[in-house]
């Protein structure tokens, strides 16, 4: 069933891998524009797949304390904090207010909120020296003491109107294995541990993998990795076990905003296109799809994304190409080098050879 596009180009991978009557290819569409960074997907994935913990880390990368995908993180939520020029660019969402939240009235409100400190003292949640800070803030603003209750849960500026938002935005994205149409990890695996499922996804068989580590270097997205204490390679299986039982993968199931959408890939691609048009219509001109194009360097991703900035801002490669696209050419060059070796040896020995005959 090997076709001329087996190494590169548009392809339906499951039939190409030899499945007859394969079910439709499934995948994820991760719409980052509605991601709230709650990490429910990370948790659900760990729970369902019994992925071991990878330490309690504070990485200093905003709220991303996962630090990217790896053997023990099959979903990883990335957080990006950006200044986002108001007036220069479209607002992230046309209906949400924009403007500074850290100046003028907002300062007063914050300072006044800190005046709830006696309450904090009573609850034991106060911070040392906060009284002095609050007093300084009060005097600077000239505000009168006034108890405002607990801080609100609304986003900054919502209460104060559009003019009180900062030119600042969050980008959040739940990253995952792309289940590439042309998966380099699978191509290079020397044991056959990585395989293409009937659903068109890419899965490691843990009873086969011998930890050679080739897949780790081959993946153009830096997804699959070797688990240190175990020696084998691990990554997202797109919940192969759940798929087999007709269930939705754990991450998509748990996502409260439907940022992670699971379904048949053709349908997801249409849905993504509609969402893109909707966002462009709403003035979010920076929205773009990533990994949706079957003509791209990996033949399209089974798990693709809607992004609000360049892919590299999210830690994604801007233009990944499956390394095995060039494999035939590599073998040709190796063949030429091999021939050169034999020729070199012949040249080196030829005079001795004839010298011996004489």
């Amino acid at each position: 069933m090997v076709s001329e596009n087996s190494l590169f180009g548009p392809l339906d991978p499951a039939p190409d891998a030899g499945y007859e009557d394969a079910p439709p290819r499934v995948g994820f569409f991760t719409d980052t524009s509605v991601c709230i960074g709650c990490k429910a997907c990370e948790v659900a994935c760990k729970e369902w797949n019994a992925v071991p913990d990878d330490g309690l880390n504070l990485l200093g990368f905003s709220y991303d304390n996962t630090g990217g995908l790896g053997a023990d993180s099959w979903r990883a939520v990335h957080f990006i904090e950006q200044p986002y020029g108001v007036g220069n660019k479209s607002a992230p969402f046309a209906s949400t207010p924009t403007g500074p939240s850290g100046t003028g009235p907002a300062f007063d409100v914050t300072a006044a909120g800190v005046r709830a400190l006696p309450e904090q003292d009573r609850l034991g949640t106060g911070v040392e020296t906060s009284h002095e800070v609050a007093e300084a803030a009060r005097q600077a603003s000239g505000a009168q003491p006034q108890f405002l209750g607990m801080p609100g849960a609304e986003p900054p500026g919502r209460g104060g109107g559009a003019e009180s938002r900062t030119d600042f935005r969050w980008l959040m994205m739940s990253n995952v294995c792309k289940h590439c149409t042309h998966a380099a990890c699978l191509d290079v695996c020397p044991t056959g541990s990585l395989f293409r499922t009937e659903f068109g996804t890419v899965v490691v068989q843990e009873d086969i993998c011998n930890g050679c580590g080739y897949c780790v270097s081959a993946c153009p997205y830096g997804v699959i990795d070797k688990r240190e204490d175990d020696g084998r390679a691990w990554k997202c299986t797109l919940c192969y076990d759940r798929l087999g039982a007709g269930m939705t993968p754990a991450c998509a199931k748990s996502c409260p905003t439907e940022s992670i959408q699971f379904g048949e890939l053709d349908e997801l691609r249409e849905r993504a296109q509609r969402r893109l048009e909707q966002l462009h219509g709403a003035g979010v001109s920076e929205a773009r799809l990533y990994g949706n194009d079957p003509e791209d360097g990996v033949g399209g991703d089974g798990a693709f994304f809607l992004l609000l900035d360049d892919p590299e801002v999210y830690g994604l490669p801007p233009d990944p190409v499956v390394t095995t696209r060039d494999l035939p050419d590599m073998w040709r060059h190796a063949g030429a080098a091999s021939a050169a070796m034999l020729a070199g040896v012949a040249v080196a020995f030829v005079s001795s050879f004839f010298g011996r005959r004489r």
Partner: protein
Amino acid sequence: MSADDAGEHRRAGGAPAEHQVGATPPGGGRVPHGDQAARSWEFGRGDGRRKPRGGGKRDESVMVPDAEFQSYYGRAVLKAPVWTHDIAIYLFTGGLAAGSALVAAGADLTGAPTLRRNLRLTCLGALGASTFFLIKDLGRPERFHHMLRVAKPTSPMSVGTWVLSAFGGLAGAAAVTEAAPLLPRTGLLGLGRKVLPAAGSASGLAAAAVAPALATYTAVLFADTAVPSWHEVYRELPFMFAGSALASGAGAGMLLAPVTEAAPARRLALIGAAVELTAAHRLEEGHGLLSEPYTQGRPGKLLRAARALTLVGVAGAVAGGRSRIVSALGGAALLGGSIATRFGVFEGGVASAKDPKYTVVPQRERVDARGSAKEKRHSGIAVDEDSSAREG
């Protein structure tokens, strides 16, 4: 990057400079090339065409001009290879096994018994070391035989496993026949003593036929990855490894055989060194940004050391016809050069995978060059160009 630059850059991004959003380093910063020590977390959303500032005094020795790129907190896009130096050693021992099998076969055909015997034994030793280091590097060494459950042309490691197995059998057999003189002259074993040399020649020649594949598949093994500086040089790498393998085999010959027998080895040393050095030059100079990892830091030092050692070896090969000592020293230098080459290429690739620059910049250039509607940068670019024009 100076604080000044940072401020300037922030303005270029359209955010008022007086607005400090927080102490947390934001993602999405463009980081200047060649300035990793001072890599600061940048707010900027600049246009990637930073202009020289401050009177244009720039270090002319910097090969690749400064550019900027965006990344996620400067983190690598790729996973760095999990292979350890075991694999770099394997590259050397595999190459040595291949090179010495070729020299041994040549010696066999031209009637140079010492050269033949010693290089067959060298080959056997290198083979043993290769197998050891290959298996040792596995995460699950006891499962090494899982490699043999499939034969997969899309996996250079699978191809290499089969090549190594075939070569190992043949070269091992050839080496074992060198024990023939130890057998008694009469009886059944005496028959072995007569038959073995012919069998050794046959398997030795067969091993030599497979040897080039063993020496060059490792180049495909490295090139067939997402590691930017390995993949990029896939045309040169097989020749570099082929040359290195020939030079190491020839070096072993110069080291282990009398000068009269080693004459072809000395000629082969010149050929191998020429191929290796030419390919190495193209590797280090011919690929712009992606050549950079091979010229900097430890990989750069290793590859410079490799060149120096190989040149010493070449001198030894030229002058070694009269002195066994000179010949042996030259041979040892060639072997050392081959080791340094392998470690240099290995580490250069690893360095290129660890720095997002080498992944993002070439790909971004590709996307921008295509300029397709789908990948077009969002409207921010017009603003950035305006502001940089004002600044510049």
